[in-house]
């Protein structure tokens, strides 16, 4: 295969030592070692925080470790698959995703007031929107790659329609947060493909202008409540404002050095809700303080930088667009999650990537990194 040729070429050069040698060894299996190590560091710290956040629940830590294990296996497999297979798969994955989303609306299982789950006999319950997180950038990147860069306006318009279809379906579930994030991942492909700046700015202004209209025509009561709570959490301190007040209290009381691992009163005494899922960063901030938060942000920053670098040196346009979109989307998750927990953004159900408890999100994120590694390490045909 092309990839193996590439690595053999490199190994046949001068002798290498330490990191470089293992880098080459990993490259043989299409693994980018710096990124891989950063991910391991992130997941390892995730387990430490989770142990504290779950009230020192070993069972939960073990399960999450299994999630990571599955995730990294998927990553390994995804990295072996050459880009052209993804190109071939792209339209099919998209089609399956759209069908599944329609399926959810017709026969989905509801949870917490929204229909998101699809229960197919013989398969574990899953959220088709998770599949779409990968399928949509895949399709748009494939489409844009076939059209070349920079794209013509008409091509952009057609791509927009492809983005809009799953977006509307997810919006119907209703899941505003996910639909915006998935829509963004599609738009990001267009951005990297060279969407003209004037179009970007006009889209941003149109969205800004439409926000008030969303309030009246699109948003559900519970979504409006979230926005109201965001604007003034003290208006309902025991109800919907509770979460954000408690998470800000947890973060603020941590100070610079934190209260110490397993010593956070907000999380250990269960004042902080959802401490092992969406609000896990508050546990870190309380127990390990600003230092811990900055360290975690640094890890995220390094991952994103490495990802962007890998995208930039990717041999194919398809790979560049796809990788760029995936890695920036990954960052957007980080930003939205921490922003919401620290009270900068309204509460939307977005987990902290690779740290929050949850199998689906861990596996789909690591799969995305697998795809990125595939794009980066396979030589262009």
């Amino acid at each position, binding site marked *: 295969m092309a990839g193996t040729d590439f690595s053999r070429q490199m190994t046949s050069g001068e002798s290498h030592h330490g990191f470089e040698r293992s880098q080459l060894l990993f490259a043989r299996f299409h693994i980018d070692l710096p990124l891989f190590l950063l991910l391991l560091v992130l997941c390892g710290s995730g387990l430490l925080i989770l142990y504290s956040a779950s009230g020192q629940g070993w069972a939960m830590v073990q399960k999450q470790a299994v999630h990571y294990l599955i995730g990294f296996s998927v990553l390994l497999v995804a990295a072996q698959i050459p880009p052209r297979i993804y190109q071939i798969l792209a339209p099919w994955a998209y089609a399956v995703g759209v069908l599944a989303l329609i399926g959810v609306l017709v026969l989905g299982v509801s949870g917490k007031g929204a229909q998101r789950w699809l229960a197919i006999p013989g398969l574990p319950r899953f959220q088709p929107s998770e599949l779409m997180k990968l399928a949509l950038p895949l399709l748009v990147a494939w489409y844009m790659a076939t059209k070349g860069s*920079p794209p013509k306006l008409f091509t952009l318009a057609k791509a927009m329609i492809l983005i809009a279809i799953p977006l509307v379906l997810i919006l119907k579930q209703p899941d505003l947060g996910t639909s915006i994030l998935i829509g963004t991942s599609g738009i990001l492909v267009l951005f990297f493909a060279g969407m003209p700046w004037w179009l970007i700015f006009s889209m941003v202004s149109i969205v800004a202008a439409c926000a008030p209209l969303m309030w009246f025509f699109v948003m559900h009561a519970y979504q409006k409540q979230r926005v109201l709570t965001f604007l003034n959490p003290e208006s309902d301190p025991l109800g919907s404002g509770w979460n954000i007040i408690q998470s800000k209290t947890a973060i*603020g*009381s941590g100070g610079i050095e934190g209260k110490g691992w397993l010593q956070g009163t907000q999380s250990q005494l*269960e004042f902080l809700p959802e401490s092992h899922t969406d609000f896990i960063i508050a546990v870190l901030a309380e127990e390990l303080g600003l230092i811990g938060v900055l360290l975690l942000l640094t890890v995220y920053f390094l991952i994103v930088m490495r990802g962007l670098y890998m995208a930039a040196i990717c041999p194919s346009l398809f790979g560049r667009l796809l990788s*760029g979109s995936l890695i920036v989307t990954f960052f957007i998750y980080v930003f939205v999650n921490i922003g919401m927990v*620290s009270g900068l953004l309204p509460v939307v159900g977005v987990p902290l990537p690779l740290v929050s408890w949850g199998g689906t999100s861990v596996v789909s994120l690591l799969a995305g990194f697998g795809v990125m590694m595939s794009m980066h390490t396979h030589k262009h045909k």
Partner: protein
Amino acid sequence: MWGNSFRDRMAEERLFRSRAIFMTIFIFALLCVLGGRIAFLQIVEHQKYQDLSENNRIQLRPIPPTRGLIYDRNGILLAENVPSYSLTLVKERVDDIDETLAYLRTLIDITERDEEQFRKRLKSSRRPYEPVVVKYKLDEEQIAQVMVNRFYLPGIDVEARLVRHYPEAETSVHALGYVGRINEKEAQRLDKKQYSATKHVGKLGIERRYESELHGQVGYQKVETNARGRILQVIEQVDPIPGKDLVLHLDQRLQQAAAKAMNGYRGAVVAIDVATGGVLTQYSNPSYDPNSFVTGISHKEYSGLRNNPDLPLFNRAIRGQYPPGSTLKPFLGLAFLEANTVTWQDEIEDEGWYQLENDERFYRDWKRKGHGKVDLHDAMMESCDTYFYDAAFRTTVDKISPFLAKFGFGRNMTHDVPNALSGLLPDREWKKKKRRRSWYAGDTLNLGIGQGFMLTTPMQLATATAALAAKGEWHTPRLMETLGGKAIEEEVKSLDNIVLKDPTDWDKMFKSMEAVITGPRGTARALRRNLTFTMAGKTGTAQVVSIAQHEEYDSEALAERNRDHALFVAFAPVENPSIAIAVIVENGESAGRTAGPIAKAVMQEYLLGAQG
């Protein structure tokens, strides 16, 4: 073609790189925003959130003080605190309240009223994870039913609390009163801090009068709790100071004797310790169980009590105002003697009626044919009305009323009996003011036999009788003997001692009252049988309906509730009086046969009870 495509690829890569650089800057900026936000919370606002977090964790939990106990003079417990078990629910831990209630209903009886009250409590403001009472007073079987099924009932628990209990129930309530749940009005009046953990407050009687002393001082516990309100550790504790124990002058044996003797009658008994003014008995019949009021009486039970024609809630002993009738005669007799209008030697010829000059009206004696030749001693013994008409007319109201006032008539002289009424002692001024009429000679005649405008409560009659028995020495009636081991410390309102011009008049009056029981024509001579102690008394009847001039009182024809009230005042032993008593039996007619025996029974219990 190839070169063109190559240049395209170069351009594509350049385009991507410029976009990637832009994105890097953008991402870095956003990360700075996040880092800045966290740093702001953790450095600038650290203190604020530090405090908030401490407030979350640390809670001051008030601990209710134990309410003081109440004993009678012999150490019999009248009010105690017993553990009571309540079923509680934590809203945050229950998914579906209706479903939980439905399941509970299959285990124990939850009435509609319980549920209605529970929903009301659920709505009122409270902190998260605070338990709300579903049902009070669980019995052992109900506790067991709930505990066994607790696994299926998350958020449901059984909580123990000390609740007031009155072991003597009906026989003590008209003196003790009771505690009940604090209502909104009381909550505003009461000290928020002291009552932060208290659920009950004295509503009536002694429980209300000595509320602040019985209540005690609230304690605090500084505890670390989790969000569910579960206490993890106690950091600091200030113990509550229990309320002071109260010992009353009341004698529970006498309360029981009174209740037993009153059986079937409506009326009241008040007995007073002559030497101290201590109230030995304060009983009103029929009575009711105060324990129903402590944890909340049901609407049905309450309206049953309210609508009962015998008025069990009516405290006749201190709020029943009756004309004293002939029981006023000992005091009137002394008033005449003081005014020099009669002497013990003066006699009149009674033909059964009295008439004023220039007045057609006949003022009748209770005995139609008259008593014949009577002096003051006979007039007392036989309760001769004609003698008192004549003497009262000559003495005039201006001399009678002020003298009666010295015995506490016309005002509430009790020290610590809440809600006692003051009766009515009429005089010229009062009539002019309230009735807008001048005082007639006929009014004086009516006052002369304790009828007309005059009203007294059994408490007042007993107090006056006690003052009489003490030969004018005034002791303000009081219920409390000691509080926390100490006698009354607050100021007690008082009246001057009554000094007669001739102190032997007291003894002569005692003799005439003793003759009421022992004399051949004494109106209470029925009491003489088996009387093992000396006793002085005076009967009285109070008209419920007035009888027209020439009509005769016919008890058969009168409906039971229109018959005269029977009254009796007495003290014993005559030589050295220790107990004074007043009894009223509503519609009891013959004082000697209804009210008299009740007084005798209570006094017998007091003087001889110990010997069996």
